[in-house]
Structure formats: structure tokens, C-alpha cells
């Protein structure tokens, strides 16, 4: 192992779901202590702490976590980056190690959303005397949601899906097949928020949210946390054989934001930055999509997963509809995608997701995924994208056996 390699020596996640009896730091502590135990380390060994969280970001949760489980004075970072928040926290810990500031880093992603609903946000009280006045960067005199189209997440990802569908002939049923697969996969994952299989017919005829996505094709809101312990190659050599034997190598870590596109001014473009991140990751790892044994990608909506088959180069260009029809992304297919159940069924506590994906892939690569194990997995990819936009792709490699 080279000094400049980064390795994962511990991972953990809480079950995803709704835990009103806990607070954010209970969830973060549970995942962190689990990952440290898994790594054979304690907070006393950690040289840098990065905590990703979206909805309580102004509370400085890295320090709140330290105050519950270990105040050692090391650098602590609070990370926010949309749905890529957790993956960004992972990268902050990684970059600190690469910069030589720490040998062991802790990355945590945590969120407590409760039942905030698919659309998010709360209505503001009406003014006593309402007079139109231009506001904001568009000089709007009214709230434009529903008047000038929709900019809410279900509608944005529905439109991203139909853009691909109009170009490449994808059907509503093909989009629904993504949800069919991920709900079926989740029945094997004890940490998933939902573990119920639905028929294709039930998915297609469930309540329509934003065509073509029915409610069973939209991820739920929820609570949960995940954590990972990272270490430099140099430090790994000094650790116990039991730790080294289970260490997962980070073969590539790539992060992108939106480059300018003409349509990006009307609606976020989820494709261009994902393609760029995937290409950078493949190049850094020196391998191609055909070598991957499993992928955990950002299926916030069923339409999104289908686009990312193409963006992550898992299928032929324009061929994402045929790819799902072929059964390739099922757990017994050519390249299993979202064996965890994905965001659609495992759940999507926003800040936790980017670390939970790394937990999932690392667990398979260690051969420790129990009933849902993808047999013999050696190389896996994680992908998250959040609208702002931010995209992170990691390629992980199994320990030598």
C-alpha cells in the first residue's frame, strides 16, 4: 500500500426511519461509535472530524457531537452540500489526511427530517394588505411555483426524466421498473426504512405525484446517520492485522459542480456534472464501468436512477430503458444497482445519504452484507447528487483476500 492511499477501516449506519424519541446528536453518536468500534479506534485516535448535515447546519453539529463523545481539540468541520452533504464530509476528512494534517479521520452524515412531506417547506402567513412589489433576482410579484411550472423536487426530477424519455423513447413503465427493483431489494436490508415489495402494477397505479413518478417512485423523508473512519496508507501499516484485513481502499474520489449549460438556467441539469464526476473517477481509478461489481447511485426519484445508468456509463448511450428491461441492475443481474433498496426504499435522510452509500458498498466489499450480500464483490461505486448542484462519485476496492 502506498503512503498516499486512503483506506476505510470502519463504517456504521443507524437504521433509517423516523425516530422522534432521539435528537440529531443521538443519531450521529450511534453511527460514530459504531464506526469507531468497527475500526478498533476511539475518538482519542481521530485527528479530524467532518460532520455533514443540512437542516440543522447552523447548530454546528461537529462540535455538538464532540461534546457528547469526545472533545480532543482536533479540527472539526461542519459540512453542507445539498444531497451530496455526507459525501462531501467524507471528502473533507479524506483531503485533510492527504494534506498531512491528520492520519485518521472521521466522516459523519446525519439528518432528522421527521414527516416534513414530499414538497418540503412551510407556508408563510399572508400580509394584511397585499401589494405587488417586484422581489428577488427575477423581480417576481407573486410566488411562481405552479404558475410558471414547478421547481419542487418531484417535478424537477420528473422533468429531468421526461427530457431523456422524449429523446430516447423511455416509457412510464420502464421508469416504474426502477422502483419495482429497489423496493424488492430493500426486503433484504434490515437497515432500510421500508422493506415491502410492490408489484409493477401497484407502483404504476399508486398516487401520482409528478408524472411519471407515483408516490412509490419518490424517496421518503426520514431520520438516520452513517459514519466512516478513514486512515492514511502510512498509518494503516501500523494498525492491528484484524483492522488491515478488513480495510477498504478508496480507489477514486471525484466531486463536481454544475458547468454552465443553456438549459441549466431554466431547470437544474443533473446529467452533465454526474457524467463529469463519473469520468474523473474512472480515470483516477484506472478502470471502466464493466469492472464494477455493484453501484449505489442517487435514486431520489425513479426517473433519476434511470438517467444515472447512462450518466455513470453503466449502459449504452441512450439505452437506459433497455438496461432496466434487461434486468442488468437487479441484484442477480450483470451490474447490481442499489442492492440496499436505494433512496426509494432504504430512505434518504439527506445529510446521511452520502456516507450511507459508502457504508453499503464497503460492507459488500468486506463480504459482510448478510442476506443482501453481492457475492464476491471486489469493486463498487457510490454516487450522490444534490441540487445546487453538487455531485460526488467514489470507487472503492475490496481488501486483498
Amino acid at each position: 500500500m502506498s503512503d498516499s492511499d486512503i483506506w476505510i477501516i470502519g463504517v456504521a449506519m443507524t437504521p433509517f426511519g423516523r425516530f422522534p424519541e432521539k435528537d440529531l446528536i443521538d443519531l450521529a453518536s450511534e453511527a460514530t461509535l459504531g464506526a469507531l468500534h468497527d475500526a478498533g479506534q476511539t475518538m482519542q485516535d481521530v485527528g479530524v472530524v467532518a460532520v455533514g448535515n443540512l437542516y440543522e447546519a447552523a447548530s454546528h453539529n461537529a462540535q455538538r457531537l464532540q461534546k457528547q463523545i469526545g472533545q480532543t481539540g482536533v479540527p472539526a468541520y461542519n459540512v453542507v452540500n445539498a444531497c451530496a452533504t455526507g459525501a462531501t464530509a467524507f471528502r473533507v476528512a479524506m483531503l485533510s489526511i492527504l494534506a498531512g494534517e491528520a492520519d485518521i479521520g472521521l466522516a459523519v452524515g446525519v439528518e432528522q427530517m421527521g414527516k416534513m412531506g414530499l414538497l418540503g417547506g412551510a407556508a408563510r402567513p399572508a400580509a394584511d394588505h397585499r401589494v405587488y412589489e417586484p422581489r428577488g433576482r427575477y423581480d417576481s410579484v407573486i410566488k411562481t411555483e405552479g404558475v410558471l411550472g414547478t421547481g419542487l423536487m418531484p417535478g424537477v426530477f420528473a422533468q429531468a426524466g421526461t427530457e431523456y424519455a422524449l429523446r430516447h423513447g423511455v416509457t412510464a413503465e420502464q421508469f416504474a421498473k426502477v422502483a419495482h427493483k429497489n423496493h424488492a431489494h430493500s426486503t433484504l436490508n434490515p437497515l432500510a426504512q421500508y422493506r415491502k415489495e410492490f408489484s409493477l402494477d401497484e407502483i404504476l397505479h399508486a398516487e401520482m405525484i409528478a408524472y411519471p413518478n407515483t408516490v412509490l417512485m419518490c424517496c421518503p423523508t426520514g431520520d438516520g446517520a452513517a459514519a466512516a473512519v478513514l486512515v492514511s496508507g502510512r498509518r494503516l501499516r501500523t494498525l492491528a492485522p484484524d483492522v488491515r484485513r478488513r480495510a477498504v481502499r478508496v480507489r477514486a474520489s471525484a466531486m463536481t459542480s454544475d458547468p454552465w449549460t443553456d438549459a441549466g438556467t431554466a431547470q437544474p441539469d443533473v446529467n452533465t456534472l454526474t457524467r463529469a464526476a463519473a469520468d474523473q473517477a474512472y480515470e483516477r481509478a484506472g478502470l471502466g464501468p464493466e469492472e464494477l461489481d455493484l453501484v449505489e447511485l442517487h435514486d431520489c426519484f425513479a426517473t433519476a436512477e434511470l438517467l444515472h445508468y447512462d450518466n455513470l456509463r453503466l449502459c449504452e448511450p441512450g439505452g437506459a430503458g433497455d438496461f432496466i428491461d434487461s434486468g442488468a441492475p437487479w441484484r442477480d443481474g450483470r451490474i447490481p444497482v442499489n442492492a440496499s433498496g436505494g433512496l426509494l426504499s432504504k430512505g434518504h435522510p439527506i445529510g446521511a445519504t452520502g456516507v450511507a452509500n459508502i457504508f453499503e458498498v464497503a460492507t459488500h466489499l468486506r463480504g459482510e452484507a448478510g442476506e443482501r450480500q453481492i457475492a464476491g464483490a471486489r469493486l463498487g461505486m457510490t454516487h450522490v447528487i444534490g441540487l445546487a448542484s453538487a455531485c460526488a462519485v467514489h470507487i472503492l476496492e475490496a481488501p486483498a483476500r
Partner: protein
Amino acid sequence: MSKSRVPAVGYLVLDDEQPHLRARECGDCGALYLDRRNACARCSGTRFEWRPLARTGRVRAFTIVHRAAKSVPTPYASVVVDLDGGGVVKANLLGVTDPAKITANLRVRLETVSAGQDDDGTEAVAFGFSPEPEA
């Protein structure tokens, strides 16, 4: 009776003859923007001029929204439209709620619609698109 009319957004021009959209065009690279700018996101230029946009275009993407805030009537169609000659905008597709009616490159034309009145009787005017009759 409305005392006056105002555009719902600053990039809608309420010309009685030809209501249309306008964009800030980057003087260096030609990129188009509907919002107030600090600089160009493509080339970082800082010179902008208003440019009128075409009233016609083609549907690039769509959805039919069924779940929305209580104040928004559903279902309705939201579309992303590539305007002829440049510019991409999002708006409602008027009078269409059947996804089967929206085909690749469906041609559409801009229309203005009332978006309510304030307590002084001023009317807000928004815009949407309607499918163009088959040629």
C-alpha cells in the same frame, strides 16, 4: 376593474401587441439569463443588454403535477421550452393534463394569463404556453 397590470416576473414584457419574454444577453459570449446578474456564469463577462426572446418554441421536458400546495390547482403541466432562436424557460403548458398529448419537440406558443390581483386592484400577469395547431 383592474387599475393597472404588472408582469408577474421582470423577464415578461407586457406589450399589448406582442407580449414576450426578454433576457439579459452577455455582451461577450451571448449567454442568456432571466435573472439579475453580477456576471456571466459561462465566461465571467460583465456587460449585458436586454434581448427580446421568441414567442414560439419546442417542449424539451415536462411533468404533470398532481400533488402541490393547497393554493395551486392540480393537475397541471409544467414544461421546459427551448425558445426558437435561443433561451430556455420553464412555465405551465396551458390546457393539457394528458401526458400522451406531449410528444417530442411539441411546438408551443406563448400566451399571457392572469395570476391574481393585489389589494389595490393591480393585476399580475403571468405567461404560459399552448400547443400550436398542427400545420
